[in-house]
């Protein structure tokens, strides 16, 4: 699985982001290169939430950062609001930054421990000269109220005085400060308690509606993205496996890897046993990925064809794309 291809791209005018053949490589020593992302294409229509799902090391976070050009991808194209970001440099790239923001997994690491909440939120506004000091302070109060924090209580506190969920609210407020078009959420709830996860997911939904945002939601947990996403893209070892709307991904799963992800979600019901379709072991090293389909080493349906030939993404049902030589029949 884990193939290339652009069959899933939608050539409409309403696209905020078009990524084509994006590759990110890291050189870790003279002759060792990690291919974190290999030729991934995706597009994002205004107002949608694209979930990118996969295990750690599949390149999903690297992909998110490469879209923001932090660091610049090794090759491929990232077209955001009609501008080719990979060709922009210095101030022209900087001018694009307010429109695309990011929220991170680790609530503690996301905030500078030395800054108070109001200083944290003032930073983007000051960098872009968004009004006078009084206007900036009013805007900060506004943002805090929007993410359900009481400005009079939290303004002058520092990050270590807050719970993980509250830190995540502050991060969301910071990302919203510049009124971006797109926010990339990198595992925003996986470090939080289950009871807090739901609060943050709902908040993201509310903010999306209020600010008219387009979201990329990166997660390792299919259940988490189910409620919030409008399109799901499953990644494995730097490649795309399956792209579809969330209901199709869960109910008419076509890819063997997606099937394993679905089977891994814990079921809060002792009478229902897990599907027993667990994959064993861990993904191979991205330094020398398997030939052909990258998932074949852990795939029950792997054949000789899978080793010889890399599967391309193809449409198996309207809007449902899969990169597999032997997709699951539904």
């Amino acid at each position, binding site marked *: 699985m884990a193939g290339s291809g652009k069959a899933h791209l939608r050539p409409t005018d309403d696209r905020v982001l078009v990524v084509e053949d994006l590759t990110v490589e890291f050189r870790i020593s003279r002759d060792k290169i990690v291919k974190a992302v290999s030729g991934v294409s995706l597009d994002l229509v205004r107002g949608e939430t694209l979930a990118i799902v996969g295990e750690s090391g599949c390149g999903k976070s690297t992909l998110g*950062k490469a879209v*923001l050009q*932090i660091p610049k991808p090794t090759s491929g194209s990232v077209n955001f609001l009609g501008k080719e970001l990979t060709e922009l440099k210095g101030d022209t790239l*900087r*001018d694009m*930054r*307010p429109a*695309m*923001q*990011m929220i*991170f*997994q*680790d*609530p*503690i*690491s*996301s*905030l*500078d*421990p*030395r*800054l108070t909440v109001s200083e944290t939120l003032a*930073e*983007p506004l000051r*960098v*872009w000269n968004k009004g006078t000091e009084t206007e900036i302070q009013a805007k900060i109060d506004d943002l805090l109220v929007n993410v359900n924090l009481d400005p009079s*209580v*939290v303004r002058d*506190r520092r*990050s*270590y*005085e*807050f*719970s*993980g969920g*509250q830190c995540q609210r502050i*991060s969301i407020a*910071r*990302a919203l400060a*510049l009124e971006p078009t797109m926010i990339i959420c990198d595992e925003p709830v996986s*470090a939080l*308690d289950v009871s807090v996860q739901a609060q943050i997911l709902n908040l993201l939904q509310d903010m999306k509606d209020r600010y008219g945002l387009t979201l990329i939601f990166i997660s390792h947990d299919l259940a988490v993205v189910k409620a919030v996403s409008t399109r799901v893209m499953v990644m494995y070892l730097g490649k795309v496996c399956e792209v579809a709307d969330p209901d199709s991904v869960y109910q008419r799963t076509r890819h063997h890897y997606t099937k394993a992800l679905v089977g891994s979600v814990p079921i809060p019901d002792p009478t229902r046993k897990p599907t027993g379709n667990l994959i064993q072991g861990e993904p191979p090293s991205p330094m020398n990925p398997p030939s052909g389909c990258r998932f074949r080493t852990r795939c029950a349906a792997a054949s000789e064809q899978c080793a010889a030939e890399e599967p391309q993404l193809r449409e198996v049902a309207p809007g449902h794309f899969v990169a597999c030589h032997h997709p699951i029949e539904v």
Partner: protein
Amino acid sequence: MSETISTADSADTGPLAPAAKRKRPVGFYLAGSWLGSIVLLGLFGALLPLRQWDLASYDYLGALPGTPGHPLGTTQDGYDMLSGLINGARISIFVSFFAVLFGGGIGALIGITSAYFRGKYDLIVVSIFNIMLSIPNLVLSLALLSTLAYSSPDKPATLQRRLIILILSLTIVIIPILGRIARASALQWSSRDFVVASKSMGTRNFTIIRRHILPNVAPAILAIGFLAIGSVIIVEGSLSILGIGVPGGASWGSMLANGRGNIAFSPHEVYMPAICIALTVISSNWFGDYVRSRLDLREAKI
């Protein structure tokens, strides 16, 4: 993880939070008061009604401590020990403070920028630091001093010039030591998500360094800076003993060097400056350690 993150209301009293505020150790007060009095004496010692340190009194050659008019005795050449030590404090503290200040400042600047920008610049900085660190402090400053402070026999360098050159060469010794600490710490902070967030907001690199990296790295540099003051005093003393530090018994080290030959007749000439050096080094180490442990505690809480 989940237990350490609690709600704001209970954040400072979370289930496993440390209890009462820690008491400062006695050593902190002892070290602090010694360093404090040395600095005060160095700054205002000249105002005290004492003999001039470089004015020999030929009535008292090698007087023992407790002699009237010379509470700490005199040297074999008739110089007053107490005023000599006070003047020495001024020179020693002056030299080590400025050497650490300049060395720390430049080192931090190089270390932080190289950690932040990485790439070839970082590679070059690290190699230079490593080469400099592989040469023992004393040998490096000796080499620097003997090239920089060259004075022809008929035109000896003035004390002022010698001091500036001494500070300069000690600064060069300090740069890689503190630079490497700054780099290591900055490396850690640069990978935090809030730095990436700041970049993605379009904040300029030097603003990020000034607002986010420097304030977080500063405590580590400060703590090590205190330790460095101690070692610089020792290096300065050793250089004086070798005869290329501050000349004429002006610093503690050079008092030690001058008194070396008289150890049999007036041992106090040697052990008084030696005790001063030792106490100052111990105190600054202690102080630096304390500063660091305080900051570690803060970090642990974060």
